[in-house]
């Protein structure tokens, strides 16, 4: 019996009925208890793409990079780096959904926090993978630790990424402990290794008042820590570009610009995640239309902030049209990159700023379709920040072979990028098959608060 001890929740006047609670546990544990046919197909599909990526990487490292990938002296950073930026941006979803919302008393975040956290953890790991794939000498990765220069933004990025990864894992693990402890009793017929894992990860949880106090305090500390860390991680990634003299990246706006873009991406990604889990695991009772309503409004809000930073980033230099920036700005606004650039702005910033203003667009399906386009546009936006930035150096590019004048990712690069996505989805999927994707006790806690405030039960 989930004992809502009055000493912890003194304001509680009623407890959950046993029946309500058991239904909730059944619903949320069902995807963990049983993996259906489509579940297995999905996992195998993702694994296949991951394996293709591993093979592609093997080819890249054993054969000449000049042949396998499209990088050349002028465009020495390509989709691996823009993919890395994308994944770092995506990893801020944890900051947004869990930490920020925890502080704002927006209770609707509760069912979303765990899925946001696992997406964040998976993303930050894949960001690391994406960067290692881009290195010319991955066999010298340990040099970063042996010979690292503290003055280098890459070293800052490595430090912050590692710190954020550990913090996110802890941030995900702590609220998971009560659920893991419940898993030990609730799940039936699961393999021994799985049960052993639960035993280990439950950290001796019995639900005593002292344990709750310790848990809540630790969670509060982590929540406070996570927000500046998350903001730092994307700011430092922005500084990988802003600390160079290249005209496209020579902007004091870059840190804030990147972080605001990350929040937009995070909102769009959580919409997709909520829709997917809702459908796949039949969680309509817990991930309701109200959630989509709130998320839609959040999407508008984040888009407007991002739009503001884009205006500052592009339109102000365009007004000045300084000789240093003219080439790449004109290229993006009216030149070769124009169709690409304007589509990304339209689908990635303008549409999410306007469409969800209509209540009909905040229904699950339309909002999810919009969110998917925002995620895709966000990926291409990072591409537009990295590659055109390299195609317009200060000294003119003259008399070089054709392949040095343009950049288009090779098949191997595209495979590896696809594999990073597949790996991220695989981590999230496997996690959701081992642990309930919605935090049982956090939802219960939220409902109780609501019940005690006399509002109608959200779960109807």
């Amino acid at each position, binding site marked *: 019996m989930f004992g809502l001890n009055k000493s912890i929740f003194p304001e509680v006047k009623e407890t959950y009925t046993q029946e309500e609670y058991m239904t909730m546990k059944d619903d949320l544990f069902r995807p963990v208890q049983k993996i259906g046919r489509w579940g297995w197909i999905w996992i195998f599909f993702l694994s296949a793409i991951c394996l293709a990526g591993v093979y592609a990487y093997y080819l890249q490292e054993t054969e000449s990079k000049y042949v396998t990938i499209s990088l050349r002296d002028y465009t020495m950073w390509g989709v691996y780096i823009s993919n890395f930026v994308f994944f770092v941006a995506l990893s801020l979803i944890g900051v947004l959904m869990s930490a920020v919302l925890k502080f704002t008393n927006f209770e609707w975040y509760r069912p979303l926090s765990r899925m946001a956290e696992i997406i964040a953890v998976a993303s930050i790991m894949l960001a690391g993978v994406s960067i290692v794939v881009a290195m010319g000498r991955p066999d010298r990765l340990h040099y970063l630790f042996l010979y690292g*220069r503290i003055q280098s933004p890459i070293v800052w990025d490595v430090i912050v990424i590692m710190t954020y990864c550990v913090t996110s894992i802890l941030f995900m693990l702590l609220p998971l402990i009560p659920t893991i402890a419940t898993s030990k009793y609730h799940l039936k017929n699961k393999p021994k290794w799985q049960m052993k894992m639960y035993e280990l990860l439950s950290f001796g949880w019995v639900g005593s008042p002292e*344990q709750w106090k310790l848990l809540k305090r630790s969670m509060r500390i982590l929540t406070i820590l996570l927000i500046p860390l998350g903001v730092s991680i994307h700011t430092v990634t922005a500084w990988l570009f802003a600390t160079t003299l290249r005209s496209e990246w020579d902007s004091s706006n870059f840190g804030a610009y990147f972080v605001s873009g990350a929040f937009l991406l995070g909102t769009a990604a959580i919409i997709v995640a909520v829709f997917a889990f809702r459908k796949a695991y039949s969680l309509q009772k817990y991930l309701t239309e109200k959630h989509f309503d709130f998320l839609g409004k959040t999407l508008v809000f984040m888009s407007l902030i991002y739009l503001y930073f884009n205006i500052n980033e592009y339109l102000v230099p365009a007004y000045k049209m300084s000789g240093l920036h003219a080439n790449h700005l004109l290229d993006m606004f009216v030149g070769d990159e124009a169709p690409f650039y304007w589509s990304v702005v339209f689908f990635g910033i303008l549409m999410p700023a306007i469409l969800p203003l209509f209540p009909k667009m905040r229904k699950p399906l339309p909002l999810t379709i919009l969110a998917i386009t925002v995620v895709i546009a966000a990926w291409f936006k990072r591409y537009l920040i990295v590659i055109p930035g390299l195609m317009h150096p200060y000294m003119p590019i003259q008399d070089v072979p054709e392949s040095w004048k343009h950049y288009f990712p090779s098949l191997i690069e595209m495979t590896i990028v696809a594999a990073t996505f597949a790996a991220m989805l695989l981590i999230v999927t496997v996690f959701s098959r081992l642990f309930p994707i919605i935090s049982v006790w956090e939802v219960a806690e939220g409902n109780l608060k609501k019940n005690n405030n006399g509002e109608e039960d959200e779960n109807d």
Partner: protein
Amino acid sequence: MKTTKRIVITLLMLLPFMGWAQDKEATLTMSFDIEDSIKTAIVLVEDAGVPAAEVEVKLFAERLGGLLPLGEATTDESGEARFEFPVDLPGDDQHIIHVIAKVEENDIYMDTEISEDIAWGVAPNMDILKPLERSLSAGRARAPIYFILASVLIIIGIWGTLCYIVYQLFRLRKLGTVNDQNYL
């Protein structure tokens, strides 16, 4: 007739000597003096002990990969060519400059040269070589102090907190075993 023949024969006999005239070797001697408080390099050109006049001499200072021209002068009747030595030419760390005097493309004499070291160089501007200081561009051992301090403090602060949290996790386990009562 006979006189003309004699003249022609004499000329013919002299011809080889004219042709071999460039093979005359001149000896050069370099000395340094301060005349009227002007640093002067003096090059004496002698032809078998006899001072040679009207010989063009060039003076150079040896530099990395090339010879810096310091001037040209013609020898006077005493066979001496005088050069005003520059006062601001950097020498090595002992103020030494390797000076070379050359006689080149002279009608009478073969190309010759002589070189001497003279400590008339000024100290090189050691500011150019100032030791690499702590900066953002410097190597890993020379990061600015404030930078190292700030980074270390921030890292210790954050990782310290994380270690504390992990420690709390293990305390959690201990708390679980202390109390037999299972609330689950």
